[in-house]
């Protein structure tokens, strides 16, 4: 057999294998394709553990002496293709082929003692850093941030760090926790004292899904176990060993468990990761003082708009998402998709009871310049932006969360910025945003230690920062509220000097929109408007306010006044450096509009009533003249006709 034939044969085999793999990953199982019934099927199923080799393990029974945690992967995969689910937006973050789409909320690593507040993301959103850039492996990332993920993604990556391989064998992987979203049981515990978040922080990744469900309790901590501990051969004498106990009454005579699984995820499940707390001047921080999104109040569920099929390719719900999403319902699931559809074959308006907006008195130019959310979403803008807490950034809904308003990270909102400005836009063809339109944003001013090369700033790894900056700032007093400590510029200069000695390259510090470095004589040099110091912005989608509470409902001066927050509101510049904390920027600086023009245009609205009076008065005079002479002409015609008749 010649070499060419061998090569051809090999290639054919390769193609066939690839096809077989593709078929396997795309294969729809029993529960992946609906037969048309709207009735949800009961999920009375046996549950399985994962074996030591990562395969389907033995069935969990209530009489097991040392049961292992059930694996969602192997328990659900009889009917649902796990590989298909993994493609979903919530789980595909590690897939570099997935377009990043519109910039979203980053993960924020913060440490007040190190003056750190850095946005992280595995997606290619400009302004964020990949976790490995600061030395966070997928394993460490999962331990810190896995608490507010539904599993999968970095939680399922095989670690390559030598010191983590053993730990991952012990902890297992944080596989996709189907229950995090689909378990409608009131006992689903994501943020409780022994719930999902706590298990993740204890490195009990393998146990996290079981701990979150209503019929299992997990104790112990894998992080406290020696690396030699084998969870598959549990030692009853080992203290703090991760252990799962199942409630025996949850199993039937066939050792099956009834899960309260729902197709349509309840809002409460979404809220665990997607809650916002806007801390205005009025201190409306209690749930009972706040209104929900108008859509929820109207009876809709989050998933009525944020829909997905079995591939879990959930709709994010922004205008240009159609450019990158394969979800067929993307176009009809935006604001316009429900409220302003123009059905060609059949009427589409009013889906889900969506009222078709009339926007009385709003010139149509607003729809070219603003997103729907600009007027309808987020809190009503005040004179100054407010600190905002989010579930994922502030660990909301988990035990011992810092409830102080000033607690880091400092997310600021609402900021009205043009899309495509200040890092909000990045490779439009990938992000598919409505460039140029003004939208409300949340803003994070990054604060991190870096090395500058030309104009590019790379963050310094955490281990180095902890060692050098931790040493330099060892004596600073940390605020009990979790706010920034009292840092002055001299301390920053000293820290940069110390860091320069520890790293190869020129050390800098980024904070409050400025780049700090030291000159040859060791003096601190500040640089404004450095690209690396730009704030990271991500859009505010919710809560949507009703039409009666939208911007502009009272009068144009809701926005077009010389002191209207929309253009002239103050944005607090967040910085660990005490002297910089009172710095402000104006909203207009984030918009692609000349400030003097915006001011002049707003000022002109003072004369708007006069303009109306003058114009209507002039029209009345002209109409009067026209009417008078028309009547006179008519009189002449009548007279002429009458004389002809004679």
């Amino acid at each position: 057999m010649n070499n060419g034939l061998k090569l051809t044969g090999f290639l054919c085999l390769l193609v066939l294998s690839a096809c077989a793999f593709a078929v396997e990953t795309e294969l729809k199982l029993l529960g992946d394709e609906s037969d048309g019934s709207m009735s949800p099927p009961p999920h009375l199923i046996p549950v399985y553990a994962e074996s030591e080799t990562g395969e389907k393990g033995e069935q969990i029974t209530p009489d097991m002496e040392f049961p292992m945690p059930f694996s969602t992967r192997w328990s659900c995969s009889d009917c649902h293709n796990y590989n298909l689910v993994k493609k979903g937006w919530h789980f595909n973050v590690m897939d570099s082929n997935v377009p990043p789409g519109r910039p979203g909320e980053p993960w924020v690593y913060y440490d007040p003692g190190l003056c750190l507040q850095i946005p992280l993301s595995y997606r290619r959103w400009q302004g964020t850093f990949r976790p490995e850039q600061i030395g966070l492996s997928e394993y460490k990332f999962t331990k810190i941030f896995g608490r507010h993920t539904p599993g999968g993604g970095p939680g399922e990556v095989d670690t390559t760090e030598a010191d983590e391989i053993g730990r991952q064998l012990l902890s297992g992987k944080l596989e996709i926790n189907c229950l995090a979203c689909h378990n409608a049981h009131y006992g689903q515990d994501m943020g409780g004292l022994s719930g999902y978040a706590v298990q993740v922080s204890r490195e009990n990744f393998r146990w996290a899904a079981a701990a979150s469900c209503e019929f299992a309790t997990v104790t112990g901590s894998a992080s406290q176990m020696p690396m030699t501990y084998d969870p598959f051969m549990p030692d009853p004498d080992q203290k703090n060993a991760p252990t799962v106990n199942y409630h025996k009454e949850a199993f039937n005579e066939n050792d099956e468990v009834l899960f309260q699984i729902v197709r349509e995820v309840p809002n409460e499940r979404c809220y665990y990761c997607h809650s916002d707390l806007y801390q205005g001047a009025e201190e409306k921080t209690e749930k009972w003082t706040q209104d929900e999104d108008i859509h929820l109040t109207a009876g809709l569920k989050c998933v009525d708009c944020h829909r997905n099929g079995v591939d879990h390719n959930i709709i994010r719900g922004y205008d240009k998402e159609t450019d990158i999403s394969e979800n067929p319902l993307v176009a009809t699931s935006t604001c316009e998709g429900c409220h302003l559809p123009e059905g060609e074959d059949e009427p589409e308006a009013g889906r889900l009871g969506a009222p078709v907006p009339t926007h009385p008195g709003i010139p149509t130019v607003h729809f070219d310049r603003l997103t729907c959310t600009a007027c309808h979403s987020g809190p009503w803008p005040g004179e100054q932006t407010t600190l905002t807490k989010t579930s994922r950034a502030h660990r909301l809904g988990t035990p011992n969360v810092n409830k102080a308003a000033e607690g880091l990270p400092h997310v600021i909102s609402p900021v009205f910025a043009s899309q495509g400005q200040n890092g909000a836009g990045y490779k439009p063809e990938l992000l598919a945003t409505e460039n140029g339109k003004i939208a409300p944003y949340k803003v994070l001013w990054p604060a991190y230690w870096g090395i500058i090369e030309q104009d590019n700033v790379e963050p310094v790894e955490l281990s180095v920062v902890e060692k050098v900056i931790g040493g330099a700032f060892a004596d600073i007093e940390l605020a009990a509220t979790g706010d920034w400590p009292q840092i002055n510029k001299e301390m920053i200069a000293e820290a940069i000097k110390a860091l320069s000695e520890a790293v190869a390259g020129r050390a800098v510090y980024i904070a409050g929109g400025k780049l700090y470095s030291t000159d040859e004589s060791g003096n601190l040099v500040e640089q404004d408007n450095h690209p690396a110091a730009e704030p990271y912005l991500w859009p505010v989608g919710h809560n949507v306010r009703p039409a009666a509470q939208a911007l502009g409902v009272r009068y144009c001066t809701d926005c077009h006044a010389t002191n209207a927050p929309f253009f002239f509101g103050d944005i607090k510049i967040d910085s660990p450096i005490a002297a910089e904390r009172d710095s402000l920027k104006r909203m207009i600086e984030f918009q692609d509009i000349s400030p003097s023009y915006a001011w002049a245009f707003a000022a002109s609205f003072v004369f708007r009533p006069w303009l109306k009076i003058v114009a209507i008065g002039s029209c009345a005079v002209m109409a009067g003249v026209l009417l008078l002479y028309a009547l006179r002409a008519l009189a002449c015609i009548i007279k002429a006709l009458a004389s002809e008749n004679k």
Partner: protein
Amino acid sequence: MYRTISIIAFLITLGGIGLNCFLRPCKECWRHPLKKLVQLFTMLFIEQKLSPAGVFRKLVYLLALLCFVVLAITGFYPTLVLGEHISGYLLMIHATFAPVLAICLAVLAVMWARNCRLNSNDWPWFQRIVQRVTLVQSADEEISCKSCIGQKIAFWLIIFLALPLILSSVLSMFPYFGTYWQELLLSLHRYTALVFALVVIVHTYLLIRPKM
């Protein structure tokens, strides 16, 4: 669409005026163009023989003409040249001069209406136009040179068009009209503005032409 229609309309109007100049040339203009230009320029001045009312009327007319020029430039330049909607400082200038023009038009309507009413002198002109259109021949009548029916019609058209032009803009500022009506009012404003501008150009030409 609007851009194309507007450009064609302006070309036709200006072409028509050019054709008229060509077919009925002003011999003096060709012989002494500079002199004629100066003469045209002096038309902008206030004549001493004018009564106070006449002075006021001329001042108002000149102000209206200035406002029209500013409004036409700020309104049509972004649409016809840049291919975009009016915005920014141009919009502000547009909105500043618009009420002044509205006042001037109202004053001119009051002051000129009597002079511009159609009378018996205009009848032969009208008859001739009807005959041309209907191709019905009748005994020729001498047409009075004093009749300026073109100017008069243009005047009444200007006053008539000013109403939808102004109201379409002003009414959209009240919170009574939704998006559909806003778009309709905007279209009405644009197309009325186009016709208004053409009529003003014709009216101005008809004012100048007899004095050339």
